[in-house]
Structures are given as structure tokens and as C-alpha cells.
């Protein structure tokens, strides 16, 4: 009986306090309800609910409030599906300008094929490595493979594989763009969703220099430019650049590229 009392009294007391607060809180919550912004409340469930912060607002509810207040446009969110965006636009009474769907790619496939200038033994990710003489790679442009993008991605869509460079898993990626902002080398880029090829190199170094330090780097030979039947590829600043408005997706550039830095998707 003693023990029973010693357990039941404190348990009962704590339970009592908690129950009291629960009743008070729920009663007061109903009684004192303040109408929030109705629009924001309608919008919030239509958003992706990922809280990725890709829009620049603190979470989806913050973005919904900004939308309702007219401070933001729905295009700022990449994760929300386009049908929901249209619904949100209807709530807001605004028209949504359909932006073409995009996918995200890492424009460097150097990785282990790109030479290191030193062995990094410090702490942290690409951004801390970048502070140390621009990272471990001899190439000043390429992927450092330390996974700043991996850390930034909420969807586990971005991993540094065995090849030593970061890769985007298209099946998991929602296109929020967190990795694009996290990358210190700025080599993660958006391309049209239906693109068939992309240039997996960001080096603006001369072809000879690139060949000396990386097996997968663009050597600016111009083979792709000559091969392209629609004139969509030009070599600018020692790097092949694809104009996706002209690209037909024939894949000839991929075939002709001697270092295979033009990747066929």
C-alpha cells in the first residue's frame, strides 16, 4: 500500500497538472481563436510541404504567408507540382506563368579522373575545402567531391559516388535548388527537363592544360560544334555550351566528343 501510494500520488499529480493544462489550452484555443490569414491557410496545404527553404522563406508556412501578403510569387517554389501552383494562383487571383520544368545536373564528371594537388585532411565539406587554395583539385573549376550538396539536399537525391564527383538522382530530386546554392564551385546547374545531352565540365582552361590534369574535361576541340546539325553547340571560353532552344537531342555531340564530357541522358 505504501509503495502504491508513493507511485500513484506523484503520477496522479503530474497527470492532473497535464490534464488541467490540456483542458485549459484546448478550451482557450477554441475560445480565443484568432482568425489567421485565410488565404495563407488555404495555400499552405497546397505547397509541397518539404520546408526545404528553396524559396528563401522560413518553411512552407512562411512562404504561404508571403504569398498571401503578395510579397512572393508562386514561381519561387520549385518543389510544388504545377497543378497545385495553378490552384494557388487561383486563390491569389493571379495568373501563373508556366515556367518550363527543369532538372538539375552536376556540370563536372572529373572526380577521380581529375588530379589532386594536395590531400585534404581537414574537417568539413566543399565549402571549407574551397577556402584552402580553392580546393584539392588542380582544376579550379571542378567538383571537389566533399558533399556540400549532399548535406544541403533534403531528399537524399544528391550523392558523391565512387567516381569521386557528385551526382543527382533524378528520381528523388524535386528541383528545389538547395544544392545549387550550396556548391562553392557553382557547377550544379538547371537544364530543361527534356534535355537529352549536357556538358559535364565547367573548366574554362585551355584544352592543353585541361588534358594535363583531367581525363574528363572539355578540351575545347570543337568536335561537337562541327558535329551538331542544328548549330546548338558553340565553344565559348574553352567550354562547349549547349543552346537548348536549338538542340534536337540527336546525340551526335555525345558520340563525337573525344573525352565524353558531353553526357547523353
Amino acid at each position, binding site marked *: 500500500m505504501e509503495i502504491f501510494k508513493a507511485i500513484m*500520488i*506523484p503520477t496522479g*499529480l*503530474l497527470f492532473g497538472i497535464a490534464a488541467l*493544462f490540456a483542458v485549459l489550452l484546448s478550451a482557450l*484555443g477554441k475560445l480565443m481563436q484568432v482568425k489567421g490569414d485565410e488565404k495563407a491557410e488555404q495555400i499552405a496545404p497546397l505547397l509541397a510541404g518539404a520546408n526545404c527553404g528553396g524559396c528563401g522563406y522560413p518553411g512552407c508556412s512562411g512562404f504561404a504567408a508571403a504569398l498571401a501578403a503578395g510579397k512572393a510569387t508562386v514561381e519561387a517554389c520549385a518543389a510544388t507540382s504545377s497543378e497545385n501552383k495553378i490552384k494557388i494562383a487561383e486563390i491569389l487571383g493571379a495568373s501563373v506563368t508556366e515556367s518550363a520544368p527543369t532538372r538539375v545536373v552536376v556540370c563536372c564528371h572529373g572526380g577521380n579522373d581529375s588530379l589532386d594537388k594536395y590531400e585534404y585532411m581537414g574537417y568539413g565539406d566543399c565549402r571549407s575545402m574551397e577556402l584552402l587554395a580553392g580546393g584539392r583539385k588542380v582544376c579550379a573549376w571542378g567538383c571537389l567531391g566533399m558533399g556540400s550538396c549532399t548535406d544541403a539536399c533534403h531528399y537524399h537525391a544528391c550523392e558523391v559516388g565512387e567516381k569521386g564527383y557528385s551526382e543527382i538522382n533524378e528520381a528523388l530530386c524535386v528541383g528545389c535548388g538547395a544544392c545549387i546554392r550550396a556548391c562553392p564551385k557553382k557547377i550544379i546547374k538547371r537544364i530543361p527537363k527534356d534535355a537529352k545531352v549536357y556538358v559535364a565540365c565547367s573548366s574554362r582552361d585551355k584544352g592543353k592544360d585541361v588534358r594535363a590534369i583531367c581525363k574528363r574535361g572539355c578540351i575545347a576541340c570543337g568536335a561537337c560544334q562541327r558535329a551538331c546539325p542544328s548549330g546548338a553547340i558553340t565553344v565559348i571560353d574553352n567550354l562547349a555550351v549547349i543552346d537548348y532552344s536549338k538542340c534536337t537531342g540527336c546525340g551526335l555531340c555525345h558520340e563525337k566528343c573525344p573525352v565524353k564530357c558531353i553526357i547523353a541522358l
Partner: protein
Amino acid sequence: MSVNEYLLIIVAGIFVNNFVLAQFLGICAFLGVSQKTETALGMGFAVIFVMGIASIATFAVDRYILVPLDLVYIRTIAFIVIIAGLVQLVEIIIKKLSPALYSALGIYLPLITTNCAVLGVAIVNVEIASYTLLAAFMNGIFSGVGFTLAMLLLAGIREKLRRSDVPEPFKGFPVTLAAASIMSMAFVAFAGMV
């Protein structure tokens, strides 16, 4: 309790036993919300407010329920429940009655429900046997004032630091921690006054 003792509570709360700089409690909020003097002040007022009401509620529960029932060992958990519940309650009420105050306290009110400084003041209150309900309330309020003072001072320093030429490795957090430690040493000068 005499007037002198209340005076002592005020001085001790603000300077001698300053929660942040002498007792090392509430560091999270101290470092997290001291970027700007405005937000530091907002947070400070929220802390004063919560410490005040939490002191009254926890002191009353301890003195009139836990001690007579010989249950002082569940103090910590009981206090956490009480403080969290109370703050939520007050938040709902303020939201309805004074939207201006609600938006001034903003996000800080719910944030400090489980702040260790708030729990700290509740526990300090009940451990001093001579305290009355009024003394506990005053200790809560003026500990909050001390917290606000420390926050404001650090926020001012951080605003200045942002404009000054700090060596790269010390930029941001390291130099803030160094500044906070020097402030803390300055506050040691008050030790022994009470």
C-alpha cells in the same frame, strides 16, 4: 522580508547572479538571438515576462502542493510541464487580447518555454527557504532583467564587431564567444557583493 532583502534580490538578479554571465544558464538564446539589439530586446522582454509568471506558478505549486505531499523529487518534470503549459496559455490569451504585444514578443515567447534560464529561476526560487511568493516573483522579474541586460550588451558588441575588421579565422562565432567571455569576467567583479 524587509525592504533591504527585496533590494538585494534586485541587485543579485541583475548583476551578481546574472543568469547568463555568472550562472551560465540560457546560453542558447544568449548567443542565438543577439545579432541585433532590437531582437535582443524583444527576446529580453519575453524572458522577463515568462520568468515572472513562471516564478509565481512554480513557486506556488512547489510550496503548497509538492512540499506538503513530500514530492519535491518530481520538481523538475512538474516545473517543465507547468512552464510549458503556462506559456502556451499566456500566448493564446495575448494573441487575442493584445495583438501588438503578441507581435512584439513574436516567436520568442514559445521558444523560451523550455529555456534552461526559465527553469533555472524556478528552481533557484524554491531552493531558498526564506522566499515568499512576492520574493520569488521579484527574483523572476529581475533575473529576466539581468538576462536582458546581458543580451543587449552582447548584441551591441556584435553590431560593432560586424563593422570592424576581424581576422578571418575569428569572424562570426569565435569572436562573439571571446567577447561573451570577457563580459562574463567583467561581471565577476560583482561577485561577493551579496
